[in-house]
């Protein structure tokens, strides 16, 4: 009996009871569709995390000033400026694993264009900052070292700020007043999206650090009350850089062995990894729940195949009397459960893909379809078919032809 013949007989037997076959396959269909859709959603979540952190910049450390304590109440990080521009210079020059370091001073201010005004965050920084964040201008120019040297009154607007101040108009060359000081718009930054906690990166105005210190917040002296963005040479070195920076700053601030750090260093790579792990766990959890439903589908197949074997006892007897060997009988029933599961698997892949597509189209979810998962799910459902079909098929093959022929 050729494999083709076995499959033909199996398919005919299944089509003889179409509704039952469909309902049996439905278990597998739902299981596989769930696996496909869940993995697509899980992978989508993973990609979103990846993209969010890619937007922040890679190999990034953020150094902040420490906390102050007054009257027993301890302020948060950054409440007491402890970092100085000398610290910054030392970080740039003395730490081997650091490639770039840029301070960012912040100020919330009302910006005024000719006919609009908008409250946004003004940041005073150096050209290195844009390089660390891999942030480019979508139109116009970016900050240059000479802007910094000359204390130029120029501003770079984020997409949101530009839109609020100039609507659809072209902001390039226009004047914006910040705390009464006129700044010329030299460029608009490309869209950056949201931070992991939902803050809009694009609602911002960047001015040269020197201009910021002279015009907008002249009282700072040598201190950096904001943060310092540090870019590490390679992603494997973030831990090392963090240690080197800690040692450097403790040394410079003359902290004793027992004293707490008067600064903090955030390792975004670690945060990113943790989030990534969270997304991985979610993905695995969703997939395993879906796999359980696939298993339930397999039990459904076993159940129906057992019923089918009993119902067709006489047919089995006839086939045996006519010369079917136990192996041929077994192959026939295995082919039936395999066909049920495989067809169910393929329909499930189609359905799952459809569901994921629908979620992406209608709900705006990020979904990522993976061909390898579709293949594995189909193969696995075939395996389920064979696995759960084995016992019923054996039961059929072990029948005694005489008893089977007498079965009413």
């Amino acid at each position, binding site marked *: *009996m050729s494999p083709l013949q076995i499959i033909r007989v199996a398919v005919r037997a299944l089509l003889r009871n179409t509704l039952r076959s469909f309902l049996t396959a439905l278990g597998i269909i739902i299981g596989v569709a769930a696996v496909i859709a869940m993995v697509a959603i899980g992978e989508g979540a993973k990609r979103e995390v990846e993209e969010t952190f890619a937007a922040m910049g890679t190999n990034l450390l953020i150094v902040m000033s420490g906390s102050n304590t007054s009257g027993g109440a301890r302020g948060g990080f950054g409440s007491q400026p402890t970092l100085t521009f000398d610290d910054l210079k030392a970080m740039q020059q003395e730490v081997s694993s650091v490639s770039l370091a840029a301070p960012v001073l912040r100020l919330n201010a009302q910006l005024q264009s000719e006919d609009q005004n908008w409250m946004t965050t003004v940041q005073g920084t150096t050209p290195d900052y844009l390089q660390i964040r891999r942030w480019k201008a979508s139109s116009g120019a970016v900050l240059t070292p000479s802007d910094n040297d000359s204390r130029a009154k120029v501003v770079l607007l984020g997409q949101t700020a530009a839109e609020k101040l100039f609507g659809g108009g072209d902001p390039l060359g226009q004047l914006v007043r910040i705390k009464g000081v006129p700044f010329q718009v030299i460029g608009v930054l490309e869209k950056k999206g949201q931070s992991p906690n939902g803050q809009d990166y694009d609602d911002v105005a960047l001015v040269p650090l020197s201009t910021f210190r002279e015009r907008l917040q002249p009282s700072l002296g040598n201190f950096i009350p904001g943060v310092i963005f540090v870019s590490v040479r390679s992603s494997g070195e973030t831990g090392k850089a963090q240690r080197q920076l800690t040692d450097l700053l403790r040394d410079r601030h003359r902290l004793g062995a027992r004293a707490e750090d008067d600064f903090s260093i955030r390792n975004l790579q670690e945060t990113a990894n943790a989030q990534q792990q969270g997304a991985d766990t979610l993905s695995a959890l969703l997939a395993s729940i879906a796999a359980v439903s696939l298993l339930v589908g397999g039990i459904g197949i076993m159940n129906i195949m057992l019923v089918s074997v009993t119902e067709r006892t006489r047919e089995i007897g006839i*086939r045996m009397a*006519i*010369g*079917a060997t*136990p192996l041929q009988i077994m192959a026939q029933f295995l082919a039936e459960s395999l066909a049920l599961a495989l067809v169910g698997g393929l329909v499930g892949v189609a359905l799952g893909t459809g569901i994921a597509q629908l979620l992406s189209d209608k709900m705006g979810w990020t979904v990522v379809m993976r061909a390898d998962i579709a293949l594995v799910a189909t193969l696995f459902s075939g395996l389920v078919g064979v696995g759960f079909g084995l016992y019923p098929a054996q039961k059929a093959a072990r029948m005694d*032809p*005489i008893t089977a022929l007498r079965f009413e």
Partner: protein
Amino acid sequence: MPALLELQGITKVYRMGDVDVPALKGVSLTVEKGDFVAIMGASGSGKSTLMNIIGCLDRPSAGRYLLDGRDVSNLSRAELARTRNTLLGFVFQSFNLLARTSATENVELPLVYAGVASAERRTRAEEALTKVGLGTRLDHHPAQLSGGQQQRVAIARALVNRPQLLLADEPTGALDSATSLEVMALLQGLGDQGITVVMVTHEPDIAAYAQRVLVMKDGLVTSDTRQRPKRAGAEAA
């Protein structure tokens, strides 16, 4: 004539709980090629058990059974299946055709398990059906055929793989007398083609068509007579 069947001291014991129930108590029997043998006996006489052993559906508890010169008493289930497929054909009282399957496909079935290619299967099945007079009903399903026609499909199926021995278990039990006669005429015709027929029946009228009649009682053959068979062909015509 050479012997097709040779049974030597065949016994069969069934275990019912703790009790051994002997169904055959030592049957020795030789059947020649082309013979038409009827086995008669009351129910419980062991005739069905003997039939199952001759038909390679069951193995004897003790004794030797030579089929076409080969000892088949200790074959595995798969080897028995292949023996049934190549040497034997079965006709049952209740026809035992596959429902919702056309006459041709029913007849093709033994060839499927014999590994015959699809085109040849179809030709041979159609030939066999034509021989039993059903050349015009190839695509009919069992439910669309009369009892006599169904039994003729079953005979075509039994003969399609050119067996040495046809086993008929009460072949006319479910048929009226006119169709019974048609079936008996078909079976009688087989002897001329060298096919041996062994038939179990409890009706003396039917046994009358055989050339040799065995009577069984309590697991033993109690009488073995040759007779001049009643011809079914002439009356049927």
